[in-house]
């Protein structure tokens, strides 16, 4: 069901990008709840949706490890749709019960879904009303994770964008603040904190915070550094509050991490010698750790299905630091602005495909017989059964992969499927 492919105008340094439309095989933005609720430890995510939403969440979470998780679904029923029940009253009742049961919750997200969007349930207004009702103990915010509007990691973007209006105003007198944006594993966040401290930055904050009460301030004195490439909406609202984005590579791999830190140093006018002193050891450690993995992965051809929007920085890392050969880089959306530094470093001539027509893409993948295919959970085992090695992409969102000391872990995600195939004799 592919529509005619269109060549979109691209900047001179960036490779050709093809746009494809057809069946998409991706998660919706609700999936982000699975890692976001681990990150903000006193937040509850209440999806207002259908049984499908609830089922997606528990299936994406894989195992039901938490007896009483900090996410749930207010499932719309026939009477809600038929207007027999006032959806807002119902929501108030459910939220009231929920907060009564969970006094530890400090922040509640009402998360919009496909059904709530289609019936035009105004969760923004509901959140304002509930916020007033439950102030000051609980902050109530809303965003949409619906599949008709968001793809997979865009759910995190929508969530973080919803946090921005709740952030306090930074005082103009304050020292310039570095605001690192994007959910990172705590261990990685702590590593970056140490690096920025060594650079001499004293005012560093992370979004999202670990606790609802620790929302950092924002203002014209804030410089924004993205840790994830899929945060365009969040950047836009931060800029509206006066913040400035630091254009940079993303901190995947040794080169990406150094580039990311260097961009900060430039923005803060830190001397080059000091930057080198801070990054040298980490960079060398990462490179050393990658050496063995490069031997395993060099020359291997990789085909990437669109999924997390991490595909472009990953392709840059895999091609430049591991000598892998990307043969197609699929991405659900391509934000040329946020990825301009990344795009410039991609090997010449690699096709980038924005959007998806999964059947056509599978045809191309089968024809290309790549050594490794990066794809979602629905496709991985069927491709393995056809004899193609795969790496399931959702792990990229659940595993700490950013920074120097995770560079080899990231490469390991790609080498393990190949090493495993080589070892198995059955």
């Amino acid at each position, binding site marked *: *069901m592919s529509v005619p492919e269109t060549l979109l105008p691209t900047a001179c340094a960036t490779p050709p990008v093809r746009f494809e439309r*057809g*069946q*998409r*095989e*991706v*998660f*919706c*933005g*609700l*999936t982000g709840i699975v890692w976001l609720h681990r990150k903000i430890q006193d937040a509850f995510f209440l999806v*207002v949706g*259908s*049984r*499908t939403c*609830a*089922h*997606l969440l*528990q*299936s*994406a979470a894989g*195992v*039901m*490890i938490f*007896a*009483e*998780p900090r*996410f*749930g*679904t*207010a*499932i*719309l*029923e*026939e009477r*809600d*749709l038929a207007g027999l029940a006032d*959806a807002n009253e119902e*929501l108030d*009742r*459910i939220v009231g*019960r929920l907060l009564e049961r969970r006094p530890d919750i400090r922040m509640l997200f009402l998360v919009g879904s*496909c059904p709530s*969007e*289609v*019936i035009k349930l105004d969760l923004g207004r509901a959140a304002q009303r509930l916020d007033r009702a439950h102030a000051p103990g609980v902050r109530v915010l809303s965003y949409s994770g*619906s*599949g*008709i*509007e968001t793809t997979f990691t865009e759910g995190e973007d929508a969530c973080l964008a919803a946090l921005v209006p709740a952030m306090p105003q930074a005082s103009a007198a304050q020292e310039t603040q570095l605001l690192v944006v994007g959910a990172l594993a705590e261990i990685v966040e702590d590593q970056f904190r140490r690096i920025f401290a060594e650079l001499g930055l004293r005012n560093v904050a992370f979004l999202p915070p670990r606790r609802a009460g620790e929302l950092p301030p924002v203002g014209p004195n804030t410089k924004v550094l993205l840790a994830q490439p899929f945060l365009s909406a969040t950047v836009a609202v931060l800029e509206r509050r006066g913040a400035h984005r630091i254009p940079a590579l993303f901190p995947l791999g040794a080169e990406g991490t150094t580039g990311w830190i260097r961009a900060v140093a430039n923005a803060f006018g830190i001397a080059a010698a000091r930057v080198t002193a801070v990054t040298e050891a980490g960079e060398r450690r990462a490179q050393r750790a990658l050496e063995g993995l490069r031997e395993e992965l060099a020359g291997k051809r990789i085909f990437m299905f669109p999924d997390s929007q991490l595909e472009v920085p990953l392709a840059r890392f895999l091609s430049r630091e591991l000598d892998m050969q990307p043969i197609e880089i699929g991405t659900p959306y391509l934000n040329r602005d946020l990825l301009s530094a990344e795009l410039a470093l991609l090997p010449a001539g690699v096709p980038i495909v924005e959007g998806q027509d999964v*059947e056509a893409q599978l045809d191309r993948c089968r024809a290309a017989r790549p050594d490794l295919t990066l794809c*979602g*959970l*629905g*496709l*991985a*085992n*069927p491709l*393995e*059964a056809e004899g193609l090695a795969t790496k399931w992409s959702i792990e990229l969102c659940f595993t700490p992969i950013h920074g120097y000391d995770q560079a080899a872990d990231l490469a390991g995600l790609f080498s393990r499927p190949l090493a495993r195939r080589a070892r198995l004799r059955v």
Partner: protein
Amino acid sequence: MELALWTYEGPPHVGAMRVATAMQDLHYVLHAPQGDTYADLLFTMIERQGRRPPVTYTTFQARDLGSDTAELFKKSCLAAYERFQPSALLVGSSCTAELIQDDPAGLARALKLPIPVVPVELPAYSKRENWGAAETLYQLVRAFAGPAATQPRDPRSCNILGPTALGFRHRDDTREIRALLEGLGIRVNVTAPLGARPADLARLPEAAFNVILYPEIAHSAASWLQRTHGQPFTRCIPIGTIGTREFLAEVMQLADLADADVSPEALRAPWYARSVDSNYLHGKRVFVFGDATHALAAARVATEEFGFTLVGLGTYSREFGRDIREAAATYNVPALVTDDYLAVEARITEAQPELVLGTQMERHIAKRLGIPCAVISAPVHVQDFPARHSPQMGFEGANVLFDTWVHPLMMGLEEHLLSMFREDFEFSDQAAPSHLPQSSQPAPAPAVPLPAAVATGWTPEAERELMKIPFFVRGKARRNTERYAADRGIGQITVEALYEAKAHHAR
């Protein structure tokens, strides 16, 4: 609106997918947004299927809502037909598409495809997964079951109805039951939906009767076949030794066979239950929760074949709530018909069972409460698709039940040893593992005076006595004693009170 933390069943279109994926040569075109494609992973990751479910999703987006989602549906239908060349198409909507009311049935008909198109309407805001599977099977059977056979039917022929993809041990149950039927000389005409093509469904009326393994899924199709084609269907569920014998007796009657004793040598469960070491199973308090079919069967097997005592019976299959209530009344236990996970947890906590027979959800509840648990029913988990043949049904199924229900209790086998050795110096939580060198042994804890009794209400003597109880049952003893004390307004737990409580709970 209803708050759900975990759900026992998915939406009804997932039920339709289970039927479509079980079958061959059938393709399902689902009008649904992109997020709904998550359902593929249920089959490829949980069931480890090596092929994608035969499902095409339209994956409409917000911008399509303003233009023409109906056109998108037609294009998807056509593309699916051309690419997959199925012999029939199933069409329908997921929850979101139901709201935009595009009428997949009419749209697909308008395409005038050269193959049959079966529409399934699955109300996503009132129905669930099993209902969706049942409705889909029913619609497919209605659409394809040919005219009544002209030749007289062979009385020794039947169909097996109910097994689907992503079913709890459906794969193994089907193999087991098929072998039992064939052992009696009964021919299995068609098994559906698992492995069937639409053309096979056309042959359904040729059999003399239907065997339905999972009423949640097969009952409506079987009822229709009975009404329309005069095929009777089985009511006994072949779970457990007794259930299997009754099922075989019913089948022999339907197949016009003389009653015969069928007890294979390999049936070990009844003997194992009678063997002396199984005495420790006697009267174990067991809580049962699952889909209606498996819960009812488990309650019976637990009481009649294991000698357990049932302390609770429940189901999330609301359509079968009456059956569960009736059964619970005969066992004299409260019935629980709910799909609220928290309500199940509350009931289990209250019932204080020694074993939970439930779903993966109850496994988590039981783990939290420190109670052994065996899984008897969907929702499925990757563990529910073992590599080995592991049926729940038939005589081999009875053997499997014995193993899987008793293993979590194995600690109980040593119970008499525990009481014998409870004060043994080597048998306490302070003792280091005997296989580790002595140097790794932690320094003995200094003999600190026991904490003041104020917080717990325990006197130092009672606390010391408690410490003589083996550590792995100590928590339970503490809880039971404190509850006993609280119920009776006993402020200070003395040694006396500890043993009073023990006597009370010993019942």
